[in-house]
């Protein structure tokens, strides 16, 4: 018994430094997006005039969002798309804030909700959207941004740089107020950027990419996926400080979370900076 006690005592003394915890991680999987079977792109051979809009295409995404691309009539910062939520019932697509769509073969009937605009019936090219890879199938959703890590190096920083984490997504008021602690940012600048807090990111199977804001018109562009390589391009008019409006990096899915790590080259006051952005995205159901 004495020997057992001694060996047990010895083992006990070693135990606290040699034991390992095991963690059983259960990972959730993404369910198919809500309107995956309804996803399609409607392109018009000649723009369809609805009120003041000259519509080129209507896209119905895999996750209940519509994107109406129209000709831009003014050259200032503004959207060339209408963006919103749609639902489908009784063979009618209801596009919130715009009106209804009915499809019959290659005939599209557009019934705008705005007063004074009657139904329009036009011929269109209608192409269902299909996703071919698991990554693209996972990506084609609406995402809200969780925490982000912004990085900036080069330019005035030389070899050094900074990284800053923001837990509440891209909240431009919060980001601007923090940046003004270190950089010369005026109250006017803060007021200009504040509306551009990101509400959601929409990635569609067609390759459309929408950055929707809480208090400003959305930015519209395109994205590409190749394996885990990811890039998106927005108009340089919308993000003039990013060279070519292009941001590229990697995309990864863990359970119901999407993580994007992207880099871009930014130019500010003729200094060239390397910008990095890590985003944690959560699916909006």
């Amino acid at each position: 018994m004495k020997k057992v006690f001694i060996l047990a005592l010895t083992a006990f003394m070693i135990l606290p430094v040699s034991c390992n915890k095991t963690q059983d991680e259960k990972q959730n999987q993404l369910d198919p997006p809500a309107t995956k079977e309804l996803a399609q792109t409607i392109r018009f051979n000649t723009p369809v005039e609805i009120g003041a809009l000259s519509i080129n295409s209507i896209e119905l995404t895999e996750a209940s969002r519509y994107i109406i691309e129209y000709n831009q009539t003014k050259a200032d910062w503004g959207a060339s798309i209408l963006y919103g939520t749609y639902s489908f019932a009784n063979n009618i697509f209801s596009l919130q804030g715009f009106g209804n769509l009915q499809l019959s073969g290659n005939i599209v009937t557009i019934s705008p909700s705005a007063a004074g605009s009657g139904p329009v019936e036009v011929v269109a090219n209608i192409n269902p959207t299909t996703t071919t890879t698991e990554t693209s199938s996972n990506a084609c959703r609406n995402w809200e941004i969780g925490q982000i890590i912004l990085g900036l190096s080069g330019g005035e920083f030389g070899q050094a740089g900074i990284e800053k984490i923001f837990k509440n997504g891209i909240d431009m008021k919060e980001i601007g107020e923090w940046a003004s602690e270190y950089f010369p940012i005026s109250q006017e600048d803060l007021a200009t950027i504040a509306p551009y807090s990101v509400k959601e990111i929409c990635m569609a199977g067609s390759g459309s990419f929408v950055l929707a804001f809480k208090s400003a018109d959305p930015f519209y562009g395109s994205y590409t996926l190749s394996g885990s390589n990811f890039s998106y391009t927005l108009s340089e008019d919308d993000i003039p400080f990013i060279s070519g409006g292009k941001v590229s990096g990697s995309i990864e899915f863990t359970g119901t979370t999407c993580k994007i790590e992207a880099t871009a080259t930014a130019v500010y006051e003729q200094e060239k900076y390397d910008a990095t952005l890590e985003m944690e995205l959560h699916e909006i159901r």
Partner: protein
Amino acid sequence: MKKALSLIGAVLLFTGVTVHAQDSQMANHLALGISLGLDGVGLEAALPLTPYVQARAGYSFFPYTHKQDFDLGTLEIGGKTRDLSRTPFSATMWKGGTGKLLFDIYPGRNTGFHFTVGAYIGSGKIVHASADISKALSPQDYATLAITYGEGPDKIRVSTDKNGFIHADAKAGPFIPYVGLGFGRAVKPDSRVRVSFDMGALITGGIKLQSYSYLRNEKGDPAVITSKVLVDESGRQMDGGWIDKICKIPVFPMLKLNVFVRLF
């Protein structure tokens, strides 16, 4: 490292064979002791496995923390300069303490001289230093703002923890083999109190100098600082290559005095 592990394995094998042959000697006494050495102060339990082999297991920690204010100059971010001229700094050794399992091998049945092999197990943080720069930053930047240096895979990131402290370690692996020699037996049936002495080397295989970023992990992601990383814009190593030279030293010396009391 592999050689040291093989040596320990050989000793254990040897111990097993000897125990079988001298079964009546196995673990029939136990001594508890305190130790004082370059691993700090500690508690050890010792038991003879045979007249030629003694096992020791224990835990030690370093009770002293050196504190001093240092002039770290200024920290410039954007247009703002933060004063770090009187930065409180503290340093200690063996953070978190170390567990140890050692085997003393005696060339004779009654000799005090012995060889020792075994291992130290713990965080591997041989030296741990921290600097309080909380007054130089806004509280909202604690653990959320990192300074980066370099580019590509060698890029390092350093931030404060959530209390505004920057941490750095000279770190070995968590399992550090030990070889050495010593004098004295921890357990001798005819005496209650015994004194023994150890001198040897911990085979670290080299150490890493690292700081941490707490942005992505509240426990800290290590940022390994090497001479290769610390180059200026002209490509000159700012430390003259000394960090790499020191980090390549593969051993850490150990001196230790032990006093044991035989329980039975």
